[in-house]
């Protein structure tokens, strides 16, 4: 079988989804860990230093390109699959199956993903574009200049509607991952039933804890829990 046949088959496309999905998950782990530095309550010193350290590593810079490619591959492939699968049944049922047999969020991955994408556009506009291109105000820590991303966060999250959009984005992510985490392993061919039970539970905890932690960041800032 040629690779072209592999990647254009229905199974190969799902392989791409699972692979890019897990790659995005691994990024989330790093991202949430780094951002958690805001809770050090040291006026952002630890967070700004950590962000600077990440931004100055070549490996991370290269991975950033991979990450962007990964997100677009995942989003495009996901939406294409959703559209193709939708067209497989032209006449629907008068009485739909609903949630018997599958949880609602597992059937709405395309919608949840789209919500995540919309959130990401705002997120890039808020942080990624200033930090990479248009510039961020500087702050001096130990007489060295650092991008004051912490200050930018405080400013951005002083707006209630931004906080609300971020929390909604995190809720979409939680549901997306509750289905996505275990599905990705299955897409990659992992079929041991004993470990899949563990993966399912780990996935649920991961989805809630990671998305919850992300959601608490804007909330903490808005409510003045960090300074």
């Amino acid at each position, binding site marked *: *079988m040629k690779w072209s046949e*592999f990647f254009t*088959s*229905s199974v*190969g496309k799902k392989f791409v989804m699972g692979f890019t999905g897990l790659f995005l998950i691994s990024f989330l782990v790093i991202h949430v860990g780094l951002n958690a530095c805001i809770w050090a309550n040291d006026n952002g010193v630890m967070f700004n230093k950590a962000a600077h350290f990440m931004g100055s590593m070549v490996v991370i810079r290269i991975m950033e390109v991979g990450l962007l490619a990964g997100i677009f591959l995942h989003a495009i492939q996901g939406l294409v699959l959703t559209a193709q699968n939708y067209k497989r049944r032209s*006449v629907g049922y008068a009485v739909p199956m609903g949630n018997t047999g599958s949880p609602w969020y597992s*059937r709405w991955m395309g919608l949840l993903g789209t919500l995540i994408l919309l959130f990401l556009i705002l997120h890039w506009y808020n942080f990624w574009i200033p930090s990479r291109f248009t510039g961020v105000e500087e702050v001096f820590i130990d007489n060295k200049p650092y991008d004051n991303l912490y200050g930018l966060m405080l400013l951005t999250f002083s707006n209630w509607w931004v906080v609300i959009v971020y929390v909604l984005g995190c809720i979409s992510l939680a549901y997306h991952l509750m*289905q996505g985490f275990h599905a990705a392993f299955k897409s990659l061919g992992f079929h041991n039933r004993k470990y899949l039970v563990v993966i399912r539970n780990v996935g649920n905890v991961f989805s809630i804890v990671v998305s919850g932690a992300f959601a608490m960041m804007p909330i903490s800032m808005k409510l003045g829990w960090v300074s």
Partner: protein
Amino acid sequence: MEHYNMNLTLKVWRQQNTRTAGRFETYKVSEVSSEMSFLEMIDVLNERLTSEGKEPIAFDHDCREGICGSCAMYINGRPHGPWHANTTCQLHMRAYKDGDTIVVEPWRANAFPVIKDLMVDRSAFDRIVQAGGYISVNTGNAVDANAVAVEKEKADESFANAMCIACGACVAACKNSSAMLFMSAKVAHLSLLPQGAPERNTRVVNMVAQMDKEGFGSCTFQGACESVCPKEIKITSIARLHGEYLSAGLTSNK
């Protein structure tokens, strides 16, 4: 269980043939015995329709004992009706009570076009099996059944997958109209056994290609198929198929 009679309202999908549009027809059926099977209830209705000079409801059935997989009916929002691990022919009227309304629809999937009323064309499944769901056995003397040792756990797993009766409920239940549960059962059944080893790679590749050609969707691991499978085929078989496909891709020389 206490025997009782009931009066029911049936809403059944009626469609002349593949090309015409169908519609629901409502029938009142009275004095239905709780001891009847669901298909017997339809038989009685059909006798009445015939005596009234109307066309009886067309539906597939054969063994009526849950082993052939013909009896495809989507009943009140569930393939094969409300009971777990059950076929329509094994559904009994004691599942219902007096005054119930029952909506009966055919399997819905573009790959399963309606032939008439509740009958759908499932020959796509046959073509998928023809594409790779077989093993090669040399003619000659019959080999002793114990000549090839099979690990017990694998034999059991293979057997559990061989239970698939190709009824198509997985396709009917899946939001993507995916045939993956069916196909993965066939692949796992054969690939887990030493007799299935020679065609292991070509089997999965050819079957997936045929499935895609037939117009079934891909798997999103939602689990609706597993929840309605009369033979309790596990969704992990689909994950196994993904693994088989990946290894076929990785080890191929082309």
